[in-house]
């Protein structure tokens, strides 16, 4: 039977509605700022200027965005296969182990451009293997992947704490982290690109991983919409019964999708570890895996949307840090509230305004809300 909710043109679906959701999130956040006694307009200016005003700010925003692109892509790949990978956090964290092994072994002998490919492989492999176990349990035993991946986050965290306060910690050090990498495991910065446009950068961690993230976004698009594997993943994601009918092996597709998802999550670790801190420290992922869920949802599981959403969240991270610095009444927790509101309106309440927008469109131009279902009846 006909549904009252007609389709919207693509630009409204992918542009207007996210914009409205975002605006509402910021308006509500503005009220929160007002409540703590600060001027919301000044706060907004500081936030945006902090993120995009100066070259350094832009570089930091893109650095954070790099991390979120990886985790967002990771969540999206699993979601296209109908799997909710909540374990991105743990997969990225444990992938730090793979990077540590590569970097600590080769940083004194190899140049960065040889260490880097090795580290990419190691991080992807470890991330994928960490996702393999929950995937296997889901495919063969029916253990729900949300539960198992959450548990694997905790297991990853425990293993990493053990390793970083024990075997991986240099003797005599008090800090729970590996020794600092040598030049052979330091990735080149990309700050010069921003400087090309005339901006000045003091010091910012934006590095070559940003380009890797963009490349991965393209590869994920290719995988999902242009390969046989992606076709099978989407079939299973939309309808496991249709996949069974089409002769697609459930076990194989779940395991493959989760391992790709885990590999992307693992690569996220390259950015902070090799691009910024030059060591593997406790809790270096710091929630980026969970932000990836919001990024993937807000980006409508499409790589282009994910890159844009990742930049938005990078802006919130970077601008938020500036805001906490400039306005003492606004603490770091306030920034988390703002981020939470963005997730709430853009993710969870994504469809709240849709019916009204659709009604509006229908009243303006009925033709734009094309519903061809009832036209063109059978022969």
């Amino acid at each position, binding site marked *: *039977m*006909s*549904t*009252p909710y*007609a*389709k919207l043109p693509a630009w409204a679906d992918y542009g207007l509605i996210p914009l409205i959701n975002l605006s509402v999130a910021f308006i509500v956040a503005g009220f929160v700022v007002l409540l703590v006694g600060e001027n919301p307009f000044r706060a907004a200016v500081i936030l945006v200027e902090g993120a995009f005003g100066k070259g350094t700010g832009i570089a930091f925003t893109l650095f954070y965005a790099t991390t979120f692109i990886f985790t967002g892509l990771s969540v999206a790949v699993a979601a296209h296969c109908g799997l909710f990978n909540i374990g991105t956090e743990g997969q990225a964290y444990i992938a730090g182990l793979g990077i540590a092994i590569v970097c600590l072994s080769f940083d004194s002998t190899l140049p960065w451009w040889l260490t880097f490919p090795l580290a990419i492989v190691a991080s992807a492999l470890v991330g994928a293997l960490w996702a393999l176990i929950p995937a296997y349990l889901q495919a063969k035993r029916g253990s729900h992947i949300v539960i198992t991946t959450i548990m694997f986050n905790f297991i990853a965290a425990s293993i990493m704490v053990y390793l970083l306060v024990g075997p991986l910690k240099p003797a005599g050090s008090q800090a729970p982290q590996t020794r600092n990498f040598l030049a052979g495991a330091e990735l080149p910065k990309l700050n010069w690109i921003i400087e090309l446009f005339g901006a000045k950068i003091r010091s910012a961690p934006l590095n070559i991983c940003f380009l890797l993230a963009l490349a991965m976004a393209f590869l994920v698009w*290719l995988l999902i919409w*242009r*390969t*046989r*594997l992606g*076709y*099978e993943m*989407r*079939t299973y994601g*939309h*309808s496991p*019964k*249709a996949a*069974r*009918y*089409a*002769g*697609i*092996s459930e076990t194989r597709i779940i395991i493959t999708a989760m391992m790709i998802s885990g590999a992307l999550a693992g690569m996220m670790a390259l950015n902070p570890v090799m691009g910024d801190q030059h060591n593997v420290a406790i809790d270096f992922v710091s929630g980026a895996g969970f932000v990836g869920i919001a990024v993937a949802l807000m980006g409508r599981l499409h790589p282009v949307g994910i890159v844009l959403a990742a930049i938005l969240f990078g802006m919130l991270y970077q601008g938020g840090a500036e805001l906490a610095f400039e306005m003492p009444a606004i603490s770091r927790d306030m920034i988390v509230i703002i981020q939470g509101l963005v997730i709430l309106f853009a993710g969870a309440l994504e469809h709240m305004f849709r019916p009204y927008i*659709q009604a509006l469109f*229908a009243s303006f131009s*009925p*033709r734009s*809300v*094309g*519903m*061809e*279902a*009832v*036209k*063109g*009846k*059978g*022969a």
Partner: protein
Amino acid sequence: MAQATIEPAAIELIGINKSFGAVRANRDINLEIARGTIHGIVGENGAGKSTLMSILYGFYQADSGEIRVGGKPASIKTPNDAIALGIGMVHQHFMLVDNFTVLENIILGAESDALLKRSIAKARSELDRLEREYGLEVEPDAIIEELPVGLQQRVEILKALYRGAEILILDEPTGVLTPAEADHLFRILRQLKDQGKTVVLITHKLREIMAITDTVSVMRQGTMVATRETAKTTVEELAELMVGRRVLLRVEKGEAEAGGVKLAVKNLTVRDSRGVTMVDDISFDIRAGEIVGIAGVAGNGQSELLEAISGIRHAVSGSVMLDGKPIDLTGKADPGELRDRGLAHVPEDRHHVGLVLAFEENENSILGYHDDPRYLKGPFLNVDAIMADARDKIEKYDIRPGNPRLKTANFSGGNQQKIVLAREIEQDPGVLIVGQPTRGVDVGAIEFIHKRLIAMRDQGKAVLVVSVELDEIRSLSDRILVMFAGRIVGERGPEATEGELGLLMAGVEQEAAA
């Protein structure tokens, strides 16, 4: 026009309009239904019948127009308004809580007291009265899921009557019933009519309209094209009004020229996911160049049989030979392998199994054949080849709208089914198994689909058709097998009467023999 002496109509719809976006689901609908009559509404899928009834029952509101109930203008904004006006509805898919008793379901939403016990006590006596008055016997303390569908439907009717319905709307009520159960339903409806109730029957089965209604209205593409007195019209006229052109209700076909056995099923036993035996030791053959129809009331193992033969569900025991070579159905047979061996399957449930509704049409036109090198370039999909192939099928099967980039969910039921059929038939399989070929498909497309299946047969393919529509089975099949409780209880030729098949479907002979 109405004179004071004439009793006002039970329902009067005047100039009802309803649009969803650009689609005008109902245009200037005028309808008058006299009190104490059975009024049929027929039309193809998407003609606007359900929308109209949903407006009457308060699920939607009309954009413009007036509803009068019993001669008085009525404002129906929610189903509760409709119920208060004495309008009751029996939905196609029952709205019952499966693990509640009959009584609990009947009072659901109409509890008269904060304490359930008192509500139930009150309901029990009222229900007793209703059951006696209308001859609708149902055990009040039976659990719904333990009742056969015919009785579940009776509970739905009782539910409406309990809420004081004077006007009863039934949406496709016989879809799930055996012929005998349908007859019983019609007796109940006549009795309701005799008691002065008004019945509105929505259906696409023209024979039912002829059998039971007093007047009938035909809808097409959102408009009310005609209202007739049933006694003064014919099935042919109604079909023509529905489709807008003449239709063949019974496909013409020549004698079957059956060849060698293509598919041999021996002692097949299949259990469902709960471990209940659904297919019990079944054996049959299908030969090249014949259509074998499996008749039966839904839920007697036909679905499981189809799933097992097509490799979707594993069988417990038994053997199946395809072209003389065995298929391992109990082990690791998978649908992909069977497809490679020339067995194509049009599943019963095209929405969840045969198609991915969220996909573009062209993506669905390769589902199951996506491993075929024709559609691939290495690991990549060969988008150009897939699109060309989809366009080709759209043309051959007259799939509308003819846009391979359109989301499959936006096609009508008939066109969706054509997408599936085109995909499976164009692979030129030796054996085609089809579940419910025309469920939810409009009359025009039914004719097309039937012709295609007969063309397959005439090309020397083996075709197995499973359908709950007896008419369809009788007009398509060269041999008819009847399934009841997981067994084949009889084999008949296409000349078998409906009554004969109906008895078999109800398991009557089975019991007599036991």
